[in-house]
């Protein structure tokens, strides 16, 4: 391997195969109606929110409430895609044998994980792009003409995925059936509720604020607000600060925790994966009928 170099090494080949795998699966996903509905869910919710909040302004200002919510939804979409995406996919693909297939292929697990990361990044980016449609009407209120805003959004996107995808994968490897992905949805909704996405976190009781501030949803929302909202809107935040350093710190802790846990849990899960397990789970799915 040493003389052949990384690109022609077996692992290099698997990484390249994984990159194309991610792209192929993204293409399949974006031409699948069921998946598309999933990706436009948040943009649709935002359209609904905009409709209900029409005419309302942030108290004490003439800033549209609808414009205030948009960056929070950007942050939420990143966290949601990063947490729920990999965990639900892992649960499903363990059940249908995709993971076992990867395991039966030389360096197949590496290619599989690279493919998943690419796929999750691309589909999450896609739902952010779709947000532009309902958000078009409030663009004048946001700092979309500043390169700084876009740089920050890209940075938050990357940091957000690093902080959430490994944890999502770790969670997914703990699930024992695809039916349990419902729990993830429920858990995410609860996290979103305490993360100051649709209304300010400062309106929550003190202890819930602490819970919210432990979660990536809050910090990604805050980060996106710092990128897109006018500077004076900082007054509505805790401590009247965008707390960028704290954001990087908390997301960094999540990233480190995920990067430590995910390989251990994924390896454990992969080791246990065998044909009879797949057959057994399939049997269960058949008998329960979903």
């Amino acid at each position, binding site marked *: 391997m040493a003389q*052949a170099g990384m690109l022609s090494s077996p692992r290099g080949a698997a990484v390249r195969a994984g990159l*194309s795998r991610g792209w192929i699966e993204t293409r399949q996903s974006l031409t699948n109606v069921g998946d598309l509905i999933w990706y436009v869910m948040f943009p649709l919710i935002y359209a609904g929110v905009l409709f209900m909040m029409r005419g309302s302004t942030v108290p004490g200002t003439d800033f549209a409430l609808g414009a205030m919510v948009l960056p929070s939804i950007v942050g939420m979409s990143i966290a949601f895609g990063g947490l729920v995406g990999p965990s639900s996919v892992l649960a499903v*693909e363990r059940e249908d044998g*995709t993971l076992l*297939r990867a395991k039966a*292929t030389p360096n197949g697990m590496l290619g599989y994980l690279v493919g998943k990361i690419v796929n999750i990044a691309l589909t999450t980016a896609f739902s952010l792009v779709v947000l532009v449609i309902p958000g078009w009407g409030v663009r004048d209120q946001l700092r979309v003409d500043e390169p700084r805003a876009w740089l920050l959004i890209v940075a938050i996107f990357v940091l957000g995925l690093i902080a959430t995808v490994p944890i999502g994968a770790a969670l997914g490897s703990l699930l024992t059936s695809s039916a349990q992905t419902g729990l993830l949805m429920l858990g995410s909704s609860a996290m979103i509720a305490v993360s100051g996405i649709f209304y300010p976190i400062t309106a929550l009781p003190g202890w819930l604020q602490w819970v919210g501030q432990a979660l990536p949803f809050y910090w990604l929302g805050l980060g996106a607000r710092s990128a897109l909202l006018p500077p004076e809107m900082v007054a509505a935040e805790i401590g009247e600060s965008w707390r960028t350093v704290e954001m990087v710190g908390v997301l960094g802790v999540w990233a480190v925790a995920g990067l430590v846990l995910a390989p251990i849990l994924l390896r454990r899960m992969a080791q246990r*994966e065998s*044909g009879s397990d797949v*057959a057994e789970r*399939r049997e269960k799915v058949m008998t329960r009928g979903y």
Partner: protein
Amino acid sequence: MSSPENVTILEGQASPKGDGAHTVIEVRDLQMRYGTKDVLRGVSFTARRGEVLALLGPNGAGKTTTIEILEGFRMRSAGEVSVLGTDPAHGDEAWRARLGVVLQSWRDHGRWRVRELLSHLGRYYEPYSTPERARPWDVDELLRVVGLTEHADKKINTLSGGQRRRLDVAIGIVGRPELIFLDEPTAGFDPHARREFHELVHRLSDFESATILLTTHDLAEAEKLADRILVLADHHIIADGSADELGRQMATATEVRWTQGGDRHVHAVAEGDATEFVRSLLASDDGAVSELEVRHGTLEDTYMALVHRIETGQGDPGSGGPAGVPGAVVATEESE
């Protein structure tokens, strides 16, 4: 497939690479226990290069468990296992690249197209290509070999059960493996697909000199494909040999039928050779015997007799220990 005579099989130590390039699988006293439940209790057998082995046995006998241990997907409780010169529990990716795996019940990659998936999975094998064995298999040729050329651009979830199974086989061999594990490969095949699959297995073993270990419930298939048949029952290998050898060892009844004086006669020769009976029949018949038919016990008869004996607790009470001797071994003593 020509292997030299007198290869000492079970004497060899689990040597890495230095296994004379002939022994591909070596299993000695393999044990598998889940909690307090014994699944395998002293399984021993070997496979030589280019050999086709069929592993038969009742449901729940541990066939799949055995294969999964050999594939490195399941950790054994005890015993020695060497696959392509490596302990599967510690097999690395280069080792994995030399194996082909076809398991039961795949239903993955439903959204992919047939050709797309085969060329994708082939990419992982490219770095393991050698001058003697170019990897992966050319996708178009592979599609032709498994009879999926006309379905190459179909989505996998639109394939019929038999087509899907053929794709599983294609994926299993895309890396041009030296050793192929096939767990019930022909489940859901129609007779035509089954025959084509049998030709493929012959091709793989003859031209690719691949060693093949397959499980099946179709005894005619095992008889047709396998150089050697292993019967796994009661947690160990109860028989190991060619279909003929097993039949002879089990002394399954041979049936002689003939017509004499307008009547149809049937005589079962329970033990040994039926020739003696036929000779005396013909010598004493004054030319009246016609439509003479001698029917050997089929593998099915042999198998049923073997499994019946185990299940009714006759024979080999030890039910432990390896078969011990290469070649045809029926590890139970005839009780009558």
